[in-house]
């Protein structure tokens, strides 16, 4: 087993076991979506129109808020120092950790989307479109949010400050994710253009995220 796959397996195990808290993200997602009808009223037509936006906002908040602990737990028990000092490049190790986090915390959000779409009166096509855009877009959220998580661990400070710093960076993902879902539901544009830009954003953050996170870990942990 290579070090990277070992790291991924370990992170997924820790996240899914007692004390890991990856599935709390799904619960948070569910709660946010359930709160929405109380704010805008139980008007099914309106909810169907706002549905993709609500689902995207919920997924955005859920995936960013669970990221807070990405490096923190490893820092507390000392394993982050081992990862930093190991022969594997820190950038790759960061990418592996983010991938594990996405598998443990991001994929369940997408699995939960059809159920929540039912609550928001979305039809089959709309739910499928939202789930597909989330599948393409949430890696970007995880890899961008990882920068915030790395800053949080070097500054010993998480929570609101990190959310304030990272949320503006996720605006493009939100724009194209919602636009692609809306394009599939009501038109008039094609689904392809915003969706491919969304994929491009994910790929770009796949490159930038690990490097920025590794830089802030290298410079901050001393």
């Amino acid at each position: 087993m290579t070090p990277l796959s070992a790291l991924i397996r370990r992170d997924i195990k820790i996240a899914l076991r007692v004390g890991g808290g990856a599935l709390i993200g799904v619960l948070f997602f569910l709660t946010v979506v359930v709160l929405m009808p109380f704010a805008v009223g139980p008007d099914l037509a309106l909810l169907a129109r706002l549905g993709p936006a609500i689902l995207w906002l919920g997924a955005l908040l859920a995936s960013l808020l669970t990221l807070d602990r990405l490096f923190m737990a490893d820092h507390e028990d000392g394993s982050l120092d081992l990862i930093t000092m190991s022969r594997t490049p820190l950038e790759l190790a960061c990418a592996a950790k983010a991938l594990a986090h996405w598998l443990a915390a991001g994929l369940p959000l997408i699995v939960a989307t059809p159920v929540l779409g039912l609550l928001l009166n979305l039809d089959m096509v709309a739910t499928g479109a939202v789930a597909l855009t989330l599948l393409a877009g949430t890696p970007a959220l995880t890899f961008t949010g990882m920068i915030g998580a790395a800053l949080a661990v070097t500054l010993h400070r998480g929570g609101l400050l990190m959310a304030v710093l990272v949320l503006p960076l996720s605006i493009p993902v939100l724009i194209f994710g919602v636009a692609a879902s809306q394009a599939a539901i009501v038109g008039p544009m094609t689904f392809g253009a915003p969706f491919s830009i969304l994929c491009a954003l994910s790929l770009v953050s796949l490159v930038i995220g690990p490097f920025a996170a590794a830089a802030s870990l290298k410079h901050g942990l001393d």
Partner: protein
Amino acid sequence: MSLIDLANPTRFLALSARVLPWLAAATAILFAIGLYLSALAPDDYQQGATVKIMFIHVPNAWLSMFVWGVMSIASLGTLVWRHPLADVAAKAAAPIGAAFTFLALLTGSLWGRPMWGTYWEWDARLTSVLILFLMYLGLMALWRAVEDPSRAARAAAVLTLVGALNLPIIKFSVDWWNTLHQPASVMRMGGSTLDKSFLIPLLVMAVAFTLLFVTLHLAAMRNEILRRRVRSLQMMQASRVAFSGDVSTGSRQENASTGAA
């Protein structure tokens, strides 16, 4: 004297003390000329006198992006050479950049009131400048949240560079989002080339505002260096007080023990 010598904080303080009065004077003179020329500029046939807001608005908008560029260069200095003066430059630039961004937003919305009939329009440019403003505020919050300045500097440097990479992407996506939602309802200013009677005052004002930034930035950097020196002196004094307090309690205990004996 090479650029490396300038990086010494003491030399920087000496040199900037000599340069600052001249810079301030040049800024004041250019502002006088620029404002005079702006006042003389003819009214626009469509926008009337409100077109003159442009002479303040455009330089502010340009500086709001320019300052982020300056901070990015300083951040490279922080991360690559770990130089404290680069930290100081990045930290001092953030509030000034935020102020320019805020002024650009404010003048933009004042211009929008007579032109669009509303103070705020989710126009692509206004929106992306607003996001830039939020990022400046977040960066300032980061600087304020951490006590150790060099630790805060490295975190802020990473964030500044990520922001510099992301800002064009944000700008592009906001443009795209805007055209999707309101096709061409907003008048475009860049469509027609600017007349010379507008261009010259605008350029003078742009240079004046840039000089204003350089002046304010140098002054803020001096303040920050002095503030750090005061901080380290205070900490030295505090440790000395704590140490002497230790000694006195020790001697008192000694006295007590000898008294008991």
